[in-house]
């Protein structure tokens, strides 16, 4: 690792806290800092990092320079009339939401945590509970400012080929400096939520297929441990933004108030195995039972509906020092058998997941490496434990066979060959990237592991 003036080596990992590596981390205060870093890049290259909420090695660059973008975090312009908002890449979606709500504006796509940066949201083309109707984050971006490998600043819009290489491009086309995002108008920060239970996987799929279209927001949590007749039993929560007239008087008095910031942080050191088969079993059982069989029109705030996990700061630490893997895939509609088999494999594997999500995706966008494609997406969080590689290998085979793919922002262990078969536009991405970054300035541990920028040797 070549010395980089003004910053020391730091160990970085993703949210899953697996496979850390060491890099020089430099805080970005000004776009000129990015230009200087890119111009001074050495063999180990440069990478932008947001809030480090990708699970695996996407925001790591071993031996190289990592630009901490969270210090470039200004909201530059809010146009309440058009809903167009211009922000620095380091602004978190949490901050953005708090800034926009007083204008009656709403962040168009919200992933499962608000602690992600705008740059990270673009680079991973993140999706939310409204993907089936609204698409992913990149579909709401009107333009990007980006420092490319030659150290120049570009402004690209969706007509520009570089735009769709950058949306979902995992930081490998350049450093996103600013984005202009088209936001939606809302009357309130509250949600009207319908909750229902599904008795098994068939029931779950049937309910989601029947009337997802009626709700802008839809997601389900499924029990990852129950097998047999209860395989895939689930709690479905779906909703929409409440109108002013639908709020009870107490809330109608402060309709755009989203509540205080995060309330609790867990201590950093947890014994390994706190989430084990026994506690995981209990959690899955209780979570299912705690949900109402059917409840309609409940008013919930943003955090309760979208981001319950944000209440607890560093919950990833409960998985102990070996960390966790998140496995998220999508398989096309019509591949329900693969989905059934996957849920069955997980439930009978002996590995325990507590955060288990099943959702229907709508149409994808033009992002070359963008993850969402029409179909069923499933995500599970699994603590690292011997034998997990075998479960994942079996799931990979199912997903590949079904024509599906894994989400790069969550991956930490797939192989280059597998991912290449899942992303048919990878070659196109490599070509686009070779044009804009022929010397290979932008690189990450993820890119090295999955050969995202060059054909693999194996």
């Amino acid at each position: 690792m070549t010395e980089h003036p003004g910053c020391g080596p730091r160990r970085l990992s993703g949210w899953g806290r697996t496979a850390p590596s060491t890099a020089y981390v430099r805080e970005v205060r000004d776009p000129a800092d990015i230009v200087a870093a890119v111009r001074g890049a050495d063999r180990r290259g440069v990478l932008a990092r947001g809030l480090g909420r990708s699970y695996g090695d996407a925001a790591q660059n071993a031996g190289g320079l990592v630009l901490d973008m969270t210090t470039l975090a200004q909201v530059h312009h809010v146009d309440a009339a058009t809903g167009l908002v211009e922000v620095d890449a380091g602004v978190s979606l949490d901050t953005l939401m708090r800034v926009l709500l007083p204008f009656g504006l709403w962040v168009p796509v919200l992933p499962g945590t608000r602690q992600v940066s705008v740059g990270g949201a673009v680079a991973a083309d993140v999706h939310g509970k409204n993907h089936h109707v609204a698409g992913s984050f990149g579909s709401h971006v009107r333009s990007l400012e980006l420092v490319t490998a030659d150290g120049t600043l570009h402004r690209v819009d969706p007509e520009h080929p570089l735009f769709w290489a950058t949306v979902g491009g995992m930081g490998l086309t350049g450093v996103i400096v600013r984005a202009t995002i088209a936001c939606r108008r809302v009357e309130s920060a509250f949600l009207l939520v319908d909750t229902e239970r599904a008795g098994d996987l068939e029931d779950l799929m049937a309910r989601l297929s029947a009337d997802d279209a009626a709700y802008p927001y839809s997601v389900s949590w499924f029990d990852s441990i129950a097998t047999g007749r209860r395989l895939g039993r689930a709690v479905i929560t779906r909703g929409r933004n409440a109108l002013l007239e639908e709020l009870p008087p107490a809330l109608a008095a402060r309709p755009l108030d989203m509540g205080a910031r995060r309330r609790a942080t867990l201590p950093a050191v947890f014994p390994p195995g706190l989430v084990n088969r026994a506690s995981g079993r209990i959690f899955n059982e209780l979570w299912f039972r705690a949900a109402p069989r059917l409840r309609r029109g409940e008013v919930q705030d943003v955090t309760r509906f979208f981001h319950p996990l944000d209440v607890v700061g560093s919950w990833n630490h409960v998985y102990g020092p070996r960390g966790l893997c998140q496995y998220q895939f999508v398989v096309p509609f019509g591949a329900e058998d693969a989905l059934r088999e996957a849920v069955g494999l997980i439930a009978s594997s002996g590995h325990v997941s507590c955060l288990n999500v099943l959702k229907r995706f709508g149409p994808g966008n033009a992002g070359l490496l963008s993850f969402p494609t029409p179909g069923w997406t499933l995500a599970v969080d699994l603590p690292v434990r011997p034998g997990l590689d075998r479960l994942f290998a079996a799931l990979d085979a199912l997903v590949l066979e079904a024509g599906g793919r894994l989400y790069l922002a969550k991956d930490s262990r797939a192989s280059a060959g597998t991912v290449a078969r899942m992303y048919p536009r990878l070659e196109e991405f490599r070509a686009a990237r070779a044009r804009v970054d022929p010397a290979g300035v932008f690189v990450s541990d993820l890119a090295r592991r999955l050969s995202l920028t060059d054909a693999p040797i194996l």
Partner: protein
Amino acid sequence: MIDSLGAPQTLFLLGGTSDIALAIARAYARHAPLRVVLAARHTSRRDEAVRSLQALGCAVEALDFDARATQTHADVVTAAANGGDLDISVVAYGVLGDPEQAWTDVPSGVELAEVNYVGPVATGIALGAQIREQGHGVVVALSSVAGERPRRSNFVYGSTKAGFDAFYTGLGEALRGLGGRVLVVRPGFVRSKMTDGLRPAPLAATPDQVAQAVVDAVASGAEQVWVPRTLRAVMSGLRHLPRPVFRRLPI
């Protein structure tokens, strides 16, 4: 890169014809596609090792390497890293020698010292530099319980492994915080070509057992492992025996 479950993309074997090193390569090749770089003297044994790993689907490169030519080690490491980061490097070369000759004949004793200690210091320095450059990397150092408390029957070998063990333990400390990790492996008696013809000691292991222990230890982030694991307690006991008692043990 090494992945979240401990699987490497590139495995670098120094002493690429060692039975234990090749068992480690086979163990990793079972999990995922693997690039293996074999650094070893160019012999028919090395050609055979290359073929056997290719047959398992590995992409194999061979590099000429002599443990005693310490001034070449850095270049060998650099050459190995040309085709991609060195995720796991195994320092496996070593000689057992004839124990009686080793303590009575200068060239024999010095060969053990050079191959088992001086060479590994040069290799470790070169690997350390590569790891600092990469910002990540695991070194698997094949030490031995023989270094924990050298005994009369093979104390020259034991003394070289004691130095080897101390060096790699220290290297692990030095590389912490720079992205590196060193796993010191302390097998007892292993049935390999090194011990061919010798009477197996109690708790003898196979190269495949050592390999599995290495794979598990790398995945769990351990910094030292005994093979078999019970040897840890055994050695801890032996270390504290009074010399007159230790001397009389039939080992």
